[in-house]
């Protein structure tokens, strides 16, 4: 590996910029794409995977980090279940991000009593961090059919087509709902919604709020929710679901993070919307995810017998920052590549079409690093250059300022001016492509248990298209909220037991799984345990 300095390498990027501007790199032909993915994409690394030994997906493979959760033990003992519940509600929603808030607003409007419990603060989620935008086919030249085809192509044709049809058809009305709550999408001069280009789409389809789209959605949804009659319990993650002993979900056990005590919730229906799992650091990858993204839905739904889908595939976003060190893992939006920023190796050369699907671009970056054409940071991280200054060269001066103010700000905190300097990136663990298997109403394979957002699986197939997760949380958050409210209104509170946990423990023993770790994980463990050096 060459040991030339960052500066020397960056100068080569500057030197080749004029020649690269306007240069076209062909998309990978399908056959070569398959070879590239199998050789370099983390999803294809056999030793990172193992087959599950118990539960509805027994025999199927997933990464060790997720398998550990699914084959983990409940932190709850029978004695922790109270006969007199701490809370009684029609509908319990677990998770206070975009999907959870959307479901809560919808269910409350449908007239049922709603309790929303969340691990950290209301609104703490990956939603708040989404920069790129939300895909909706609103332009006359675009259509839901085109949106469908772009998405399924990006998902390697594995997407659940029924879910996808719902997504593309309901996108426009979901957008109208957001507008009615006060979300400020960017507009054209004539007042219509402005669309931007995203990676791997055949036409510009991204609705944006500058590069603060997720933040804007989350601020509005959270504010709308706290102004409705919905009880919100913060710093109280769910650690177990409750069942009637006959396969129906009837509540949950929450953990009060202030006093570490368990609280019993009786509910006629439950929606799990706890988001993704980047903080599991699958295969040792850094992550772009929120501190709370520890995949809590997976083990609690699995123990109750819910089938999971596509839990062997994760999205490694091609462009996570790797320098300066405090920014490691942080996302650099894909929209900047769509706007003309190129990926360049240590030698100042391009190596991939930047608008190819995320998995292909990520694999190509890893290939450059493995084959010695990557750059090494002072902390030992490897990556390639993202030539941001090209954006202003291609689109005119001021484009980075007006369209990517957040990225400008984040790097400028470390004295890096992206108008003048390329930045270093490497794929970062970004999205859980799969999750709890759902139908078109967010219904899992367990009666009374609904799932929405990143915690669910099927819609995105084996690779999510940029901008489809913000639409996912709104469309399916609304659907799950509606369906769960109707279900709760049509049923009575069943017995709330931990029988399924006892059965699961039996299964663990029978499979010879001794000393399983506790799951869900809840909080990533970053605290240094050795004695810190004090001075006083």
């Amino acid at each position, binding site marked *: 590996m060459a040991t030339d300095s960052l500066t020397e390498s960056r100068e080569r990027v500057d030197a080749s910029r004029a020649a690269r501007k306007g240069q076209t790199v062909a998309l990978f032909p399908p056959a070569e794409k398959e070879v590239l993915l199998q050789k370099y994409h983390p999803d294809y690394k056999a030793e990172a995977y193992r087959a599950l030994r118990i539960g509805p997906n027994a025999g199927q493979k997933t990464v060790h980090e997720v398998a550990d959760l699914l084959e983990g033990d409940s932190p709850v003992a029978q004695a922790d279940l109270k006969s007199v519940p701490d809370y009684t509600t029609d509908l319990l929603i677990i998770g206070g991000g975009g999907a959870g808030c959307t479901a809560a607003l919808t269910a409350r409007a449908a007239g049922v009593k709603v309790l929303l419990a969340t691990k950290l*603060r209301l609104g703490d989620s990956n939603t708040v961090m989404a920069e790129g935008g939300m895909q909706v086919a609103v332009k006359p030249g675009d259509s839901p059919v085109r949106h469908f085809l772009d998405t399924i192509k990006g998902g390697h044709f594995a997407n659940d087509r029924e879910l996808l*049809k719902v997504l593309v058809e309901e996108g426009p009305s979901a957008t109208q709902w957001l507008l009615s709550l006060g979300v400020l999408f960017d507009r054209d001069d004539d007042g219509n919604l402005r669309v931007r280009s995203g990676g791997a789409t055949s036409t510009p389809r991204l609705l944006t709020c500058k590069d603060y789209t997720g933040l804007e959605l989350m601020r509005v949804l959270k504010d709308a929710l706290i102004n409705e009659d919905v009880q919100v319990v913060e710093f109280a993650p769910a650690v177990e679901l409750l069942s009637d002993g006959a396969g129906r979900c009837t509540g949950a056990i929450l953990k009060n993070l202030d006093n570490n005590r368990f609280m019993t919730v009786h509910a006629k229906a439950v929606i799990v919307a706890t988001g993704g799992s980047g903080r599991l650091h699958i295969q040792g990858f850094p992550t772009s995810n929120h501190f709370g993204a520890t995949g809590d839905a997976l083990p609690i739904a699995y123990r109750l017998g819910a089938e999971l889908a596509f839990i062997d595939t994760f999205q490694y976003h091609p462009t996570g920052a790797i320098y300066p060190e405090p920014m490691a893992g942080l996302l650099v939006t894909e929209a900047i590549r769509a706007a003309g920023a190129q990926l360049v190796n240590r030698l100042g050369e391009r190596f991939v079409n930047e608008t190819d699907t995320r998995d292909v671009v990520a694999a190509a970056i890893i290939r450059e690093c493995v084959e010695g054409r990557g750059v090494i940071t002072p902390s030992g991280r490897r990556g390639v250059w993202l030539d941001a200054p090209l954006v202003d060269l291609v689109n005119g001066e001021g484009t980075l300022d007006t369209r990517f103010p957040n990225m400008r700000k984040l790097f400028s905190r470390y004295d890096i001016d992206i108008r003048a300097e390329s930045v270093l990136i490497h794929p970062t663990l970004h999205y859980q492509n799969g999750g709890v298997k759902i139908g078109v109403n967010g219904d899992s394979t367990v009666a009374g248990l609904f799932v929405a957002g990143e915690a669910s699986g099927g819609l995105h197939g084996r690779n999510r298209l940029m901008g489809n997760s913000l639409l996912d949380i709104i469309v399916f958050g609304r659907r799950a909220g509606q369906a769960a409210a109707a279900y709760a209104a049509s049923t009575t509170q069943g017995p709330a037991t931990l029988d399924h946990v006892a059965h699961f423990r039996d299964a663990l023993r029978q499979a010879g799984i001794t000393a399983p770790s506790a799951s869900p994980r809840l909080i990533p463990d970053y605290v240094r345990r050795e004695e810190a050096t004090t001075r006083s």
Partner: protein
Amino acid sequence: MTTDHAIIPSPQETGQMPGFVTVEVMGKKYRVPEGITVIQALWYTGHEMIRGIGCLGGTCGACGMVYRMPGRFELLNGLGCQTTVRDGMWFSMVANYPAAQAQYRVSDLTNAKEQLFELYPESARCVNCNACNRVCPQGIDVRSSIWYAVFGDFQKVADLTMSCNMCGLCITRCVADMPPNLIGLYARRAQGALYAPQAEELGRRIADVAEGRFRDELDQLLTLDPAELKARAAALSR
């Protein structure tokens, strides 16, 4: 896995020993590696964080903090995940700050620009002290946004405050005791819901979908065999 990438890489990984700085963590002195963030310094010194921690990407506003530097009289502010430690820095987290949040439903507002003064009467009390602008970690012109709100130019409020992460540090400093971030949120939502132009193309698309204009074609896609589906997708020009 704790050997991941949220804390600084170990010297074994980097081949070099980091330098150290002395910081005062909520009133107690510690030596911590240079170049790490305030949040990472808290982990390094054994603090389990539940409050005052969020996206770790400078976007969610959970980790507002207050600090002083030696030799300077000012109280400084920042986000814990975005501020690197420096020698002599003394910091404390401001994980939460009491604020009087108005109750309203945007769709029920009849005259939002006037109702601002019923919901947030304190919004008219700005004395132009400029403390909010100095404290804002996003560099927002908070003070102007309040005046634009008071004078009913909600679009201008939206333009100025789109990057607000709701950290609430402005509330801690406002001498008029107002919550500038919540007033901005109110004005933005009202602007979006009540004053923004109709998106006509969106309205037409919703009507098209309701009339079932895409239904047959989508239903056909549900049953296509994979090869045909691939051909259809490949036929889209880029």
